[in-house]
């Protein structure tokens, strides 16, 4: 199933899906994440902190993977590198077969824009813009024309159940609603890879469940979803879990196994 517009994706079945093509995952090469021996070292003055110490990881297209570890384990650093928000100190990273560690900044901006959708713990919505204006931001940078942008932003908000809050500013929305707007923004440009960094960290359990459901639906629609969390319960939502500690991958386990641990 590769269609986002499948009925079970719509929170409100009475709301018609406005634009069919916005929901279609583009027929691009399968996004496979291949990380080989990646190191990330932060330097503060003379002090060197190795956040990642030789991480190798492969995530196939359509997987729903959780990266789990305690705070300070390097999981966020790994996610930032996966999202091309930061570059590794050493090692190679191939995203859909392309080596992004050698890309220029402009090409990386394009990769972030077209291939990756981000969901942050802090939501990171611009407070001065309304919900739909926040959602359309990636489309502005993709060069989509104004009327199409609005249609697609509204359709994406509709799909996360925020169709009746499109003119609200982030300050007028609850945390769960803000995160749903952020999910809409992450998928509005139809990226094949969605990266969620502690998406439930600032939410109550009901809102957290809603956001996790949304991510599960994105996975069902064929997207690769990578979820970063310190919470084993949240990691259970994924089909497989990588555990990280002290900048290294401990093991790869199935969701069932991860769930079975005490």
């Amino acid at each position, binding site marked *: 199933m590769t269609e986002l517009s499948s009925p079970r994706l719509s929170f409100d079945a009475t709301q018609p899906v406005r634009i069919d093509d916005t929901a279609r995952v583009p027929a691009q090469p399968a996004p496979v994440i291949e990380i080989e021996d990646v190191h990330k070292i932060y330097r503060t003055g003379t002090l060197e902190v190795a956040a990642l110490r030789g991480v190798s990881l492969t995530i196939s297209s359509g997987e729903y993977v959780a990266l789990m570890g305690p705070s300070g384990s390097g999981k966020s650093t790994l996610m*930032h590198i996966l*999202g091309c*928000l*930061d*570059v590794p100190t050493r090692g190679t990273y191939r995203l859909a077969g392309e080596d992004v560690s050698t890309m220029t*900044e*402009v090409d990386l*901006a*394009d990769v*972030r*824009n*077209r291939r990756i959708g*981000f969901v*942050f713990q802090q939501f*990171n919505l*611009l407070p*001065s*813009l309304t919900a739909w204006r926040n959602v359309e*931001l*990636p489309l*502005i*940078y*993709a*060069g989509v024309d104004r009327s199409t942008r609005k249609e697609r932003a509204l359709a994406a908000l509709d799909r996360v159940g925020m169709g009746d809050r499109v003119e609200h500013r982030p300050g007028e929305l609850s945390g769960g609603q803000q995160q749903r707007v952020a999910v809409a*923004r992450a998928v509005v*440009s139809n990226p094949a890879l969605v990266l969620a960094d502690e998406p439930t960290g600032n939410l109550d359990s009901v809102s957290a469940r809603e956001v996790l459901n949304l991510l599960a639906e994105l996975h069902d629609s064929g997207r690769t979803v990578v979820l970063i969390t310190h919470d084993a319960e949240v990691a259970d939502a994924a089909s497989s879990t990588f555990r990280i500690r002290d900048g290294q991958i401990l093991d790869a386990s199935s969701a069932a196994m991860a769930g079975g641990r005490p």
Partner: protein
Amino acid sequence: MNLIETFRTGMEAVVSHRLRSTLTVLGIMIGITAVILTVGLGEGAQQQVGSAISSLGANLLIVTPGSTTSSTGIRGGSGSASTLTVANANVLASKTVAPDIAGVAPVVSASESLTAGTTNWTTTLVGSTASWTSVRGRTMAEGRFVSGHDVQTHAAVVVLGPTTASQLFGNRDPVGQTVDVAGTPMSVIGVLTAEGSSSTSNDDDQAIIPITTAATRIIGGTNRNALSSIYIQATSSQTLSAAYQEADNALLSLHGITTATNADFTITSQQSLLATATSVDKTLTVLLAGIAGISLLVGGIGVMNIMLVSVTERIREIGLRKALGATPRVIRRQFLVEASVLGLVGGMLGAVLGLAVAIVLPHFISNPIAISAAAIAGSIAVAIAIGVAFGVYPASRAARLAPIDALRSE
């Protein structure tokens, strides 16, 4: 992302950051207003002095006794006694000696006390001939001026400047009244037209009597032919330098002087007065422009601070925009639009405020304010440059950060 989108994004940022935008615009506005007003005051003073000197009369040369030399400063031609005489003036008036001289007005002057009834007023008493009005370019408000006949007969008549007349007679008609000039009763035959409100000139406060009357009855002294100055009017502005040469040659030969550097008189043209006064005022304008520049700089530093702080506050926004696919170039452009719009709006408002004050203020102070297009254009350009430099530079640095570093910044 095309330019229209960039412009829209920039404009939205300007509108949504109201306090920041208002403060920036205010800083630029005040700086520009200061520049326009200070430069305007300087140029206004310059124009005022210029018009005061022009009001001396058209195509005027002034011959004064004594001479100056560049090395030793002022040098009296022959002690304190005047070397200019009425006879000299009569020679200069001759068409055969000086064809380019249209009129000559010999003048003796002294500060004298005038009394009308119980009212006392000290003014400049001028003794001259009938040609004084045409040479000095003055007209009569009422009555008549001193005639050739008055000069010949040493008549006891006086013409008053408008200020002098109102000081002595108030609202009464002065013509026909009698004024005591240094103890000699004289009848008032006319009043001059006011020269206009020129604060540097006292042309409206003087009393003119026949030169012969002044020499024999009032001023007296050992050399009754001695003159304070001779006013010479050239036939036109083109012949001014020719008239200057003719007067110079005639006076040198009359005084028996062979070397021009030993001349015992000085001829000054209205232009040279104007040039001196203008250069003094230019210094003033430069000084004022300097002060204005400093106020613009201070305003600019304020703008710089606001811009730096606001960009620092928005590094997270820059990080987010980068995470969503904005290139550093797009970020730079957005901030360029914001800074330019703020600079331009501040500049325009400053220009409008400056112009408004320049129009209103002269009603309350005596100094005129000239509006200078160069000052307006220059200060707006500086304002935009300040805004752009201090708005774009930090934004451009932030745009080069890795997106996650920008996103993480507090």
